């Protein structure tokens, strides 16, 4: 047995994992286990910005940010967590800057900020209306790249231990506690046991359950899937964000910064359709609202050429014509090119379209899991509605559900989540490690993993596994996408069950040990299928529409019956059960009167 022992083991080397590593390694033995080289992590693909109420370009407050976050999440957000997110965001940004992050600058040398969907403040005219605010700190349209690089650079400086291209395949769980992980060394095919006091799942999202996605191939939700198999519930899985502006067919993300900087979406008739769906915020409404609007336009035959896409227009002449530049002044092509260089490169490369001269064909793309492994505000994983902690197990970033995003995440808040809760995770893990002793050395922890791998290698290849993946992605896109009904979800449920059974009967061609990427892809598909199952079960149970979960058979939000977080459990093969957990609501007491700080309201933009 290849045996390693660290106080803290961090699985995944994206923003949350690296942030946790920097924090944890300050005081206890820490190692990062990642199936990719850290700089390949998908945090690097985040584009437009990271929100914090710095007030560098206009007056703003963390309270404004918290209100927007809670409203953006259609009130399913846990409010204490949201306040932590928005308050700690400010120092987190300064920390990143001190680490060397090359933010764009204002004329007076401060961090530059731009507008993003759903980020507002009360109108200065006192009308009570809310107006867009420049809150997203940015480095062109490659903010995530800069965050990932900066955090990795700091890890090198601090001498953090990395196990690069080690792929986690199991958690070591005993009596409801986590004592480490089992991982395969991809270069040799050997298994390794990592014995630990604290384990962090920061494995990112799982957008690859859908056909059109902005997510990397590596985003297969290994952390949530493996935790689920060990009896940990998954929270709010029915809330999956479709980003409105993905490149047609490919789903590659075109940042919301396009619209923050003045870009506009048009239908096939050349109409600025968001005026109908969000009269106040228009193209800067939140993502779920914009994605539904695109679907409605396409359904009404107003897609471009009657097809299933619309246009995103970032031409300077369009921004000037509609007066949508952030400052209200005029802009030119050079400005657009300076603000959105990667977007322009993507459109030129993948569409053969020059966005300086033409609009870009776009469609909604599966982008972000609001749901994931349930945690408390210290990133400790919880196992039930009353918040019972799973000792030794932590989660942060997209793989977790803390829940700061509720039913729909605001643009830029994922990056805030990574740095704020990644840091809290590192701190909590180190604290736990200092206060506890190592468990006794686990006995044969690799046995289940060996059995799993030998099973796949031994099976005949009855069909290419990729067909199973394609069918899963198609049914999830068609039946569990932007719009769902009880009927489509039942179809998806049956499809997934049938695919699960086919999955268990097919094997792989490559039986080797060195870089057997076929084997790993099959194991990843197993995770995706489980997460698809959890998503569909959660969506079937929630008979209301809220945020990113739009049930056409239950079109209204139902606060009487569904003002709660879903917890979905795996109780057997293809069998799930559902429980609900209260939303954390902050109450205020004044003169004996108890009121809520963020009263429920109908969500309009």
């Amino acid at each position: 047995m290849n045996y390693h022992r660290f106080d803290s083991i961090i699985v995944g080397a994206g923003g949350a994992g690296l942030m946790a590593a920097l924090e944890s390694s300050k005081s206890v033995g820490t190692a990062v286990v990642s199936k990719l080289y850290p700089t390949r992590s998908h945090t690097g693909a985040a584009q437009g910005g990271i929100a914090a109420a710095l007030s560098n370009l206009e007056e703003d407050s963390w309270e404004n940010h918290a209100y927007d976050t809670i409203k953006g999440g259609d009130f399913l957000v846990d409010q204490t967590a949201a306040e932590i997110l928005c308050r700690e965001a400010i120092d987190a940004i300064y920390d990143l800057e001190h680490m060397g992050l090359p933010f764009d600058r204002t004329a007076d040398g401060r961090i530059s900020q731009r507008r993003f969907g759903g980020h507002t403040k009360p109108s200065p005219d006192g009308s009570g209306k809310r107006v867009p605010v420049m809150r997203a700190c940015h480095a062109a349209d490659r903010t995530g790249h800069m965050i990932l690089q900066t955090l990795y650079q700091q890890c090198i400086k601090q001498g953090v231990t990395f196990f690069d291209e080690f792929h986690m395949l199991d958690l070591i769980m005993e009596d409801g506690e986590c004592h480490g992980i089992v991982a395969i060394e991809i270069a040799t095919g050997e298994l390794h046991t990592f014995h630990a006091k604290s384990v962090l799942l920061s494995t990112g999202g799982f957008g690859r359950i859908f056909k059109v996605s902005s997510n990397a191939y590596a985003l297969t939700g290994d952390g949530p899937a493996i935790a689920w198999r060990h009896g940990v519930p998954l929270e709010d899985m029915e809330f999956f964000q479709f980003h409105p502006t993905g490149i047609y067919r490919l789903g590659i993300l075109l940042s919301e910064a396009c619209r923050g900087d003045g870009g506009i979406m048009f239908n096939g008739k050349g109409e600025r359709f968001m005026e109908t769906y969000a009269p106040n915020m228009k193209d800067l409404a939140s993502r779920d609202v914009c994605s539904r609007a695109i679907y409605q336009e396409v359904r009404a035959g107003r897609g471009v050429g009657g097809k299933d896409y619309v246009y995103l227009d970032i031409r300077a002449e369009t921004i000037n014509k509609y007066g949508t530049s952030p400052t209200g002044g005029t802009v030119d092509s050079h400005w657009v090119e300076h603000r959105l260089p990667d977007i322009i490169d993507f459109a030129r490369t993948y569409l053969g379209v020059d966005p300086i001269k033409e609009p870009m064909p776009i469609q909604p793309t599966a982008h972000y899991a609001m749901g994931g492994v349930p945690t408390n505000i210290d990133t400790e994983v919880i196992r039930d509605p009353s918040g019972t902690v799973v000792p030794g197990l932590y989660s942060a970033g997209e793989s977790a559900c803390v829940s700061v995003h509720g039913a729909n995440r605001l643009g830029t808040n994922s990056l805030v989540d990574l740095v704020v809760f990644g840091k809290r995770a590192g701190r909590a893990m180190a604290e736990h490690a200092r206060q506890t002793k190592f468990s006794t050395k686990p006995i044969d922890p690799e046995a289940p993993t060996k059995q799993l791998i030998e099973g796949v290698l031994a099976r005949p290849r009855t069909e290419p596994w990729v067909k199973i993946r394609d069918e899963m992605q198609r049914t999830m896109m068609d039946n569990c996408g932007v719009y769902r009904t009880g009927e489509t979800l039942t179809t998806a449920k049956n499809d997934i069950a049938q695919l699960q059974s086919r999955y268990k009967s097919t094997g792989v061609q490559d039986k080797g040990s060195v870089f057997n990427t076929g084997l790993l892809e099959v194991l990843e598909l197993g995770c995706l299928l489980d997460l698809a199952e959890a998503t569909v079960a959660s969506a079937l149970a929630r008979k209301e529409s809220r945020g990113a979960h739009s049930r056409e058979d239950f079109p209204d939000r139902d606060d009487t019956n569904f003002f709660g977080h879903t917890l979905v459990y795996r109780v057997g093969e293809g069998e799930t059960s559902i429980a609900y957990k209260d939303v954390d609501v902050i109450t205020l007491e004044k003169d004996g009167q108890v009121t809520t700080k963020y009263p429920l309201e109908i969500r309009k933009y």
Partner: protein
Amino acid sequence: MSTAALASDMRTLKVKIKRYNPELDEAPHWEEYTTEADPLDRVLDVIQKVKWYQDETLALRRSCAHGVCGSDAMRINGVNALACKILVRNVKGDTLTLEPILGLPVIKDLIVDMKPFFDHYKSVMPFLINDEPAPTTERLQSPADRARFDETTKCILCACCTTACPPFWSDNKYVGPAAIVNAHRFIFDSRDRGAQERLDILNDAEGVWRCRTVFNCTSACPRDIKVTQAISEVKRALLGGSIEMDRDPLQIIEA
């Protein structure tokens, strides 16, 4: 947009891949596959189609599939590129020839050992050095000072540049273009105080002076970084003993 851009017209491609499996082969050899490809497909899509439907034993790295993670650097028809950033319609002829990048040990098929590459990267101290007490808010930096090193912040460490460099092929102790690019990113950052240490590291026969200005690195960079120019700026800083600007920073129009 023109409808032509979205029109698809499948074509047949011969895909020649240099294969090597350390568990089976004594030496690398070529294998050929034939597949249908859409002109809008990425080369990565073509390779994965071969892998998924014809030969699952084929090994490659990939993740983001749109040119930002840097996993899938390889030699495509003799030129270093990311397989996810080249479209089939830009492939000349009917044959796609794929090989691992040069100068790093091949592990399996299109996968090379990246450790020597990252070791060179780490050797130039690629992190901000500034021990002065930080202010309670951000350190200030003018737009012009920020623009000074903008180019080299774009690096994704894919190794396309370093493994396209003839001096690196013949001398793997040479730190290589990517490491110098990342040193440049800090040497010219007005907030950094470690320029001299990095310049001392690079003032070596295995540092910048191994560069012969071949420009392969610049043409290979999928992020369009002017790599050779960045290396020249480091050389000039060494010769002049100064990191003062020797060209106008980008003109920036701030909102």
